[in-house]
């Protein structure tokens, strides 16, 4: 037993070293920094300095509101779409499956900067292909970047395009682990395909759907690149400002590490709450 301890920790050592230096210590450190005034030299303890400012800061509540709004709309839409993609890609009736898989899974390899640039051009007011197509069917142009509602919609469209296929891959793997005889038995009993979907597929897939939803929520909660690059620093006028962007501006533009850490721990609090909901949702019924 003693021999195994030494061997095991020798294999774990480099990983645990990186983990301690770059994760464990930072987790503690940013908690402590959130209680310090960091724009004085040296930093000093001021327990209510950042947190007190946070609860009275309209910019924080604006970012929180936007982030939650994106979460509440974008995540359910994307997960539903991913379920539809996965179920249809799994259909034995589908021809040229490889082409469809490529179409939906390709965005997974596209970097945030590359696709942000493309979306900016596609949704350009006067010369973007989207408005040209809207006009060609008689609809008016939409000013995607100067009005808050279209700008938020654009961010959600972009994120959904990028991540729906990613979730569909995970869900498809889940679908393929459901044994065929479950469906065969249902078909013999003349249960319709639609009923099979709602009474067999969805319940069996529930743990994976919840897993995808939690990863998506935590990803979207930290949304940064899209409002940074597509709607240009959270524009128009803070209309697409997210918590991730607020953290960036406070931490790395204003170099206010204390306040930015308080924002970071607000996100962590949300993430913990969501994880607890997940554990409760996927708890095995007694």
């Amino acid at each position, binding site marked *: 037993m003693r021999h195994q301890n030494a061997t095991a920790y020798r294999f*774990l050592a480099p*990983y645990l070293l990186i983990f301690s230096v770059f994760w464990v210590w*930072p987790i503690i450190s940013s908690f402590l920094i959130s209680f310090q005034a960091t724009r004085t030299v040296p930093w000093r303890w001021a327990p209510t300095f950042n947190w007190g400012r946070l609860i009275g800061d309209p910019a924080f509540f604006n970012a929180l509101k936007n982030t939650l709004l994106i979460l509440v709309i974008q995540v359910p839409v994307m997960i539903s779409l991913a379920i539809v993609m996965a179920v249809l890609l799994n259909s034995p009736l589908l021809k040229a499956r490889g082409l469809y898989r490529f179409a939906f899974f390709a965005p997974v390899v596209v970097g945030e900067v590359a696709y*942000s640039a493309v979306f900016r051009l596609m949704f350009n007011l006067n010369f973007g292909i989207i408005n040209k197509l809207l006009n060609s069917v008689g609809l008016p142009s939409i000013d995607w970047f100067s009005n808050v509602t279209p700008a938020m919609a654009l961010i959600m469209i972009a994120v959904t395009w990028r991540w729906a296929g990613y979730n569909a891959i995970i869900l498809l793997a889940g679908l393929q682990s459901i044994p065929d005889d479950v469906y065969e038995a249902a078909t013999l009993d003349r249960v319709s395909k639609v009923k099979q979907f709602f009474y067999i597929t969805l319940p069996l897939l529930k743990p994976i759907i919840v897993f995808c939803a939690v990863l998506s929520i935590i990803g979207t909660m930290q949304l940064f690149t899209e409002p940074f690059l597509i709607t240009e620093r959270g524009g128009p006028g803070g209309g697409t400002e997210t918590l991730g962007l607020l953290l960036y501006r406070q931490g790395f533009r204003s170099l206010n590490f204390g306040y930015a850490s308080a924002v970071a721990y607000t996100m962590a609090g949300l993430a913990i709450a969501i994880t607890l909901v997940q554990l409760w949702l996927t708890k095995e019924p007694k």
Partner: protein
Amino acid sequence: MSSRSQARLGRSIALHLFLTPLALIWLFPLWMMVVFSTMPDNGIFSPGIELLPHDNFIDNFNNLQRDTNFVGAIGISVSVAVTYTFLSVLLTSMAGWALARYNFVGKGVVVAIILGTITLPYAVVLIPQFIMVARDFQLANTWVALIVPPLFNSLGVLFMRQAFSMMPSDLFDAARVEGVKEWRIFLFVALPLARPMLAALAIILFLASWNNYLWPLLINSQPGAMTAPVALGTLIGLTKVSWGGIMAGAVMLTVPMLVVFVLLQRHFIAGIAAGAIK
């Protein structure tokens, strides 16, 4: 034709009628990326609808290279991604091996902590990481800064633990009876057996490093030290910039990954399905 097979045919047609437009919508941004990258700027910003590629890619690329040293940035991105992938695969396999094959004091705690970090927002560690790397270690604008902090990867370790724990013990016990050392068993017996899983992990890690944006944006902000996505990102939003050039850069970042994706689709999908990246 029986009514049964007629119903089947009907369902099949409905399926394709629904999925084909959706697939075309999904491919559209990628197609437009290619089209834009081949159009001159005055073509991109013109009132007509252009859906087919032109022949201006080389000029666009030259404009991009004028706006920022993109070739240099690609060089940094490739070197960093290759080094990162090698080191990260090694580290996560070693840790996964230890968790899969040995009993040791504190194992439960290590696993619990790794699981706990999966749902922890990266934002929580970002600021102290930056202070540490940039101020304490004075490593901003170096390769080390790009490679080392992201080496911690929780889902990769769980993936490799799973891979190693599914292997039969007899293989390793036989080697132990012969007196082979544990690290040799790991390197020469276990790793070769795990080759498909290692491939899946390596692809996912390479992609994560290649596309990583926020950390390189913060830590390597000097022009000569930027990765390719960061260099490209600095151009977006400038008033006097070649958008054809930006699109040429986007194509250079994206198309190689699409080719890899098509060639190694199985490994890719296995890696993502196992949740190897956040």
